[in-house]
């Protein structure tokens, strides 16, 4: 863990302690600080904004109830991500994991806010992630997107490190074989690469 991550975790722990004492301001601070990364994480599971908000609120509802029982066995971010992952899977079971049609407003927003380059990058990533299973998408997001270690991901997904390694390996191999094609590159390179 680098210094920034250590500082950030100390702040998160302090917020959790205040939450355990019933401090709603601390809840608001933690909520806002994690909202962005949880949103992005959950978009790997579903495209429905209402479900994403529901999962985030379920996650913080649990965090509010259990703030006093957090013993610091892991970083707060790992703990919260684990709760969000389980709430997300539950929501998928309830709502189905079919990515529903995007909200038209969201299309407009993306079009106006995203640079062309970003939009192209998103499309490229989206098409690649479509080829992965839910668990593979989650591992890719946690490692590349959030920056968690294998041990962290094992805690979040409540599975052995070996399982995480296997999911990451298979996800990377799949992406390695499809992403160059999706970007219009020659797939020839994948045959020569490791």
């Amino acid at each position, binding site marked *: 863990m680098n210094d920034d991550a250590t500082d950030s975790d100390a702040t998160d722990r302090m917020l959790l302690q205040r939450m355990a004492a019933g401090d*709603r301001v601390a*809840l608001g601070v933690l909520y806002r600080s994690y909202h962005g990364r949880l949103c992005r994480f*959950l978009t790997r599971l579903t495209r429905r*904004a209402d479900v994403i908000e529901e999962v985030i609120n379920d996650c913080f509802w649990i965090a509010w109830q259990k703030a006093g029982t957090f013993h610091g066995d892991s970083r707060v971010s790992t703990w919260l991500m684990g709760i969000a992952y389980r709430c997300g899977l539950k929501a998928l079971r309830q709502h189905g994991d079919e990515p529903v049609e995007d909200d038209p407003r969201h299309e407009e927003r993306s079009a106006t806010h995203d640079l062309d380059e970003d939009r192209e990058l998103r499309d490229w990533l989206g098409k690649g992630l479509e080829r992965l299973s839910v668990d593979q998408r989650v591992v890719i997001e946690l490692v*590349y997107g959030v*920056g968690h270690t294998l041990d962290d991901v094992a805690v979040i997904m409540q599975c052995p490190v070996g399982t995480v390694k296997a999911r990451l390996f*298979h996800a990377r191999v799949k992406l390695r074989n499809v992403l160059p094609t999706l970007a219009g590159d020659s797939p020839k390179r994948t045959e020569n690469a*490791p």
Partner: protein
Amino acid sequence: MTFPMDSGKDCVHAWEMMPWVMQGSATQEQGAWLESHLAQCESCRAEFAQQSRLRLALSLPADVPVNADVGLGRLLARLDTADAPEARPRSRPPSWLSRALVAAVLVQALGIGVLGVKLWSMGGGNPAYRTLSQETLPAAPGAIRVVPDASMTLADWSALLHALRLQVVSGPNDVGAYTVAPASSASTAQHALQQLRTTRGILLAEPVAVTP
């Protein structure tokens, strides 16, 4: 899976290390080793560039609009709703009405208890009714079963009972038998029995066997 198993050992090692070097969790030595490998391996360089692009794409903010303020507002409202039923009983002391109701219930319970004890002490020995399955009541001590002649007048019968200080406790039954018993402790059953047997108009006078 098309991962090439015939790749060089260094390339496989480099491939495994890439995500950790990119996210900064690898050691400095590992980072330096990868850098030196990439400098001499074109295919790993291309792969690293691809991985970096993947990481860049994954670090873009979510493109599904979810408003944090609205979400937080809903969460706080949910907490309010959940807190409300718990907070109310804690914050409000019991009203006088609740106390009065509790007192009334206690008084009722006490009254029922006293009544029960009183009824029990009365023995319940002589209920005002008999059921068909009940045995016949035990005869009073000194009871005598008497069958007067049918021709005996009521006045004679009454006079006889009065003279012997007897009173009818049951009867007449189907065969015209009465059960009589001494009206007071002063009169003895034995004396009355002898008098009855000697009286004209009395067909039968037998002591009732008292069951133990």
